[in-house]
């Protein structure tokens, strides 16, 4: 097997590799800025320099030539090589900054160059805490600067497009953003303008950077040059919690992180998953964070005259719901599940009404033909259409929903804004008693007689099946009125969890929504009605699910954690077009 020697240690390899990626794959470190594993290699930052040599072979025999000590003779490249653009060769000898003073000096020299025209104001830069330049400078940079002449001042606060702001003075011309628009999103909206140290990325004259994936350039910018217009200066990374989750704005199920501070989601960034979204996500998915904080249904409410709602107690809400059920024949219910809700929610919801003797829950997919692209945006506007199919909810079209409502005496709707997305009008259920179990205030909750607030994806553990049949899970990122951060083992830990004190008082009570996980509310309702319905947790809902459905055999939260989701054996997994 071919071999390579890095800093004196021998490594075997198979296939073709570039040196930098190979070094990183071994858990070793070489500093770099312009290299990104998903894009072309321009080798322009010149930071990942290493010393490289290849063994000398006898031309006739093909044998390695040996020196007087019996060791292979090495022919060293005359100059330091950029490891990102150097392919591995059998017998190659590599010295990184760890074992070569020449390379250590070369990397320091290069950082000195990068820093001469880069403002050294990390405490006020928006990228502080997430800046590779800051980290590399700390680890490999010069102790001071010998640059005593005037810096180049490139433009500041340039609004490149609706979502991205450029501080060109910080740019180190790594061209990652430009290459992203050329190679990944393929809009070619960015280019480098001017020359030399005056260089910076810019759009064409009169054009704006409105690429539907534009915010990915902010993630990959190795300095604070590109920032999100929305998130800019809103929070510091070290005061936020980072919780893994799933993008619910379309059917792709991009893996994401929810960034929370003081119990509010302030930012959404992609989480790498080569099976789903690689390193990327659409801008629309990032803008969804507001719906986790704002316009939430908090406390149950009952409709008074006209369209006015009045808040009520949980006890009264359970009582009202139970009385409505008891006053009617369960066969006359229309139970409407939702592709916007999780697998667990749809399952618990359907199971509850099945126990009462109601018809199986129905759902209607939320698909806008032609809306999607060939990348991460799909025609399917919901995260869990396949999940509803998987647990055998009855898939109906708009007429099916209308007919079901027309024939029903009570309509129960789970987290689907059927009025808002124009499947129904408010008049359609003006004659029936309508109950909404919802996360946010919508046209549907407005038209409902009873509204029960339930937790959203940012507040509970749940799973979703994407358009390709991959089941993936979320974790709670926010507390509700009834969760305890420290007791809830599903919640991720932030710096203040680990090091804060009870007196930090960093979670404002005002930011906690008065809502319950769906299964927990149904437990209360089941108790009142005397049903055998009692879940302890989302996890227990899922474990029951996996016993019930063949496709979920051997799938568990643990497996989804370990493998970043599980591919299900679902036939024809692409969403059927409406």
């Amino acid at each position, binding site marked *: 097997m071919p071999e390579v020697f890095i800093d004196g240690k021998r490594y075997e390899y198979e296939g073709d590799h570039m040196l930098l990626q190979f070094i990183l794959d071994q858990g070793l470190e070489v500093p770099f800025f312009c290299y990104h594993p998903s894009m072309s290699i321009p*080798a*322009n930052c*010149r930071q990942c320099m290493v010393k490289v040599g290849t063994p000398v072979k006898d031309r006739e025999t093909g044998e390695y030539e040996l020196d007087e000590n019996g060791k292979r003779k090495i022919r060293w490249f005359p100059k330091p090589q950029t490891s990102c653009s150097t392919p591995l060769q059998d017998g190659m000898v590599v010295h990184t900054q760890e074992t070569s003073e020449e390379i250590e000096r070369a990397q320091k020299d290069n950082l000195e160059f990068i820093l001469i*025209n880069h403002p050294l104001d990390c405490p006020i830069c928006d990228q502080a805490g997430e800046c590779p330049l800051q980290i590399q400078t700390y680890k490999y940079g010069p102790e001071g600067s010998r640059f005593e*002449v005037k810096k180049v001042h490139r433009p500041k606060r340039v609004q490149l497009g609706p979502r991205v702001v450029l501080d060109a003075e910080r740019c180190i*011309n790594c061209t990652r953003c430009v290459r992203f628009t050329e190679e990944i999103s393929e809009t070619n909206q960015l280019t480098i303008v001017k*020359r*030399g*140290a005056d*260089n910076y990325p810019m759009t064409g004259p009169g054009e704006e950077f409105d690429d539907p994936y534009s915010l990915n350039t902010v993630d990959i910018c190795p300095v604070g040059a590109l920032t999100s217009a929305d998130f800019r200066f809103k929070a510091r990374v070290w005061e936020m919690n980072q919780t893994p989750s799933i993008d619910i704005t379309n059917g792709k199920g991009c893996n994401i992180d929810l960034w929370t501070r003081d119990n509010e989601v302030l930012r959404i960034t992609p989480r790498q998953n080569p099976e789903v979204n690689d390193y990327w996500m659409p801008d629309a998915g990032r803008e969804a964070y507001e719906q986790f904080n704002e316009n939430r249904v908090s406390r149950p409410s009952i409709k008074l005259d006209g369209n006015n709602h009045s808040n009520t107690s949980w006890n009264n809400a359970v009582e009202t719901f139970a009385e409505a059920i008891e006053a009617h024949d369960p066969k006359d219910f229309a139970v409407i599940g939702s592709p916007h809700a999780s697998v667990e929610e749809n399952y618990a919801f359907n199971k509850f009404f099945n126990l009462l003797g109601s018809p199986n829950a129905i759902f209607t997919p939320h698909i806008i033909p032609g809306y999607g692209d060939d990348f991460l945006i799909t025609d399917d506007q919901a995260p869990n259409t396949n999940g509803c199919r998987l647990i055998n909810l009855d898939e109906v079209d708009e007429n099916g929903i209308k007919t079901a409502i027309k024939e029903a005496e009570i309509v129960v709707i789970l987290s689907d804004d059927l009025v808002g997305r124009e499947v129904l009008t408010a008049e359609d259920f003006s004659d029936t008693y309508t109950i909404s179990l919802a996360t946010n205030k919508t046209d549907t909750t407005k038209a409902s007689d009873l509204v029960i607030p339930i937790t959203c994806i940012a507040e509970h553990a749940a799973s979703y099946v994407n358009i390709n049949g991959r089941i993936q899970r979320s974790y709670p990122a926010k507390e509700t009125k009834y969760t305890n951060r420290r007791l809830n083992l599903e919640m991720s830990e932030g710096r203040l969890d680990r090091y804060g004190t009870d007196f930090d008082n960093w979670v404002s009570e005002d930011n906690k929504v008065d809502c319950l996980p769906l299964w927990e509310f149904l437990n209360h309702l089941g108790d009142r009605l005397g049903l055998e319905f009692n879940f302890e947790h989302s996890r227990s809902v899922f474990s029951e699910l996996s016993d019930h459905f063949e496709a979920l055999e051997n799938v568990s939260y643990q497996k989804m954690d370990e493998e970043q989701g599980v591919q299900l054996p679902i036939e024809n997994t692409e969403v059927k077009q409406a």
Partner: protein
Amino acid sequence: MAQDWKSYEPLLIPDIPNLQEIDVYEDNDGYKAWKKVLSDQNKWSRNNVINEVKAANIRGRGGAGFNAGLKWSFMPEPDGGPRYLACNGDESEPGTFKDRKIFEYNPHLFIEGALIAGYAMKVDVIYVYIRGEYISWVHQLQKAVDDAYEKGYLGENILGTDVSMEMELTYGAGAYICGEETAMLESLEGKRGYPRTKPPFPAQKGLWNRPTTINNIETLANVPLIINNGADWYGNIGSEEHPGPILYGISGHVNRPGVYEYPSGVPVLDLINEVAGGIRGGKELKAIIPGGSSTPPLRADQLEGVTMNSDSLKDAGSMMGTAGMVVMDEDTDMVEVLWRIAHFYKHESCGQCTPCREGTGWLEKVLIKIKNGEGEMKDLDLLLDVGNQMEGRTICALADAAVWPVRHTINRFRDEFEARCKKSAHAVA
């Protein structure tokens, strides 16, 4: 041979009126070499043409001085896909202005050479990348290309054979970096002129990832001479290691600046004193830059016995480059000269690689400080150190080209730089 330079008759730009007209060119043996090759393709097989050029030992006239025939032989065997020859006429280094002479006085010689090269490497399209500011020569070259098409020297089934080739002109937009061979390829592809990392080399992956060879205009203009007269004849022109006619572009403080054609290996001092008419105003010679601004300058006292060939100039501590010699008289302020050169490289750095993008600007700013009398002695060491940090650490050689003049001008004229810096020292009371 070089000693015979006075009796030399120009071959690249002979004194024939209206040679740019195709009829006049034909009357003077024009396209003879091309017809010779096409009419006897057995004798002049592709390999034989390459071997003849290799044997002539012609070294590229763009500055790097690589053996042109050897370069041609790097082209892989045809695989059915398109192949290209890219002709570099984007000269724009200070002191270099010799290709324009060919465009002006003998464009067909270049076209003929490019066709023979294209035939030898079996290319489909010849691109000519010509400096956009050369607008009148652009028009003239375009007319020559049109005439060559009309006469059947270019295009489909050239002169009734099964050889076909197209030629297209592309204009540069005033970026020095686009004269760097891989940046030129990017520019030809319609992209920003950024040099490419090598490998892959252009012969493997050039224009649109297809095999491509890049040659200088003057190099190609030599090719018909070699085919017409043979490698031996050619090898006897000028110095042995670097044979052939050379266009010497002489500028600066001489009485008759201009482009002169002589064999390689003319003594430097003869070029200055006899060809260019000596230093203007009867002043003393102070220094020269032998081959474009990137080549290290030489002091007058280093020039005794030095001839214009790469080995001799290397021994003297410089390079042949493009043979665009800048001559400076005794009144020249070397600090100002170096600042102006540094300014050029700072202005022309494409900005792709960190050491060049940042280093060229740093060098210039420190030189401005020194020029303005605000420099300190430590700045001289800083300049040399910054140069060391740049050299050999970038994708292309622009950073090296920016460093060499700094290093060698400071080392060879250090007293002038020190004098400037000492002025800023404040007297201690």
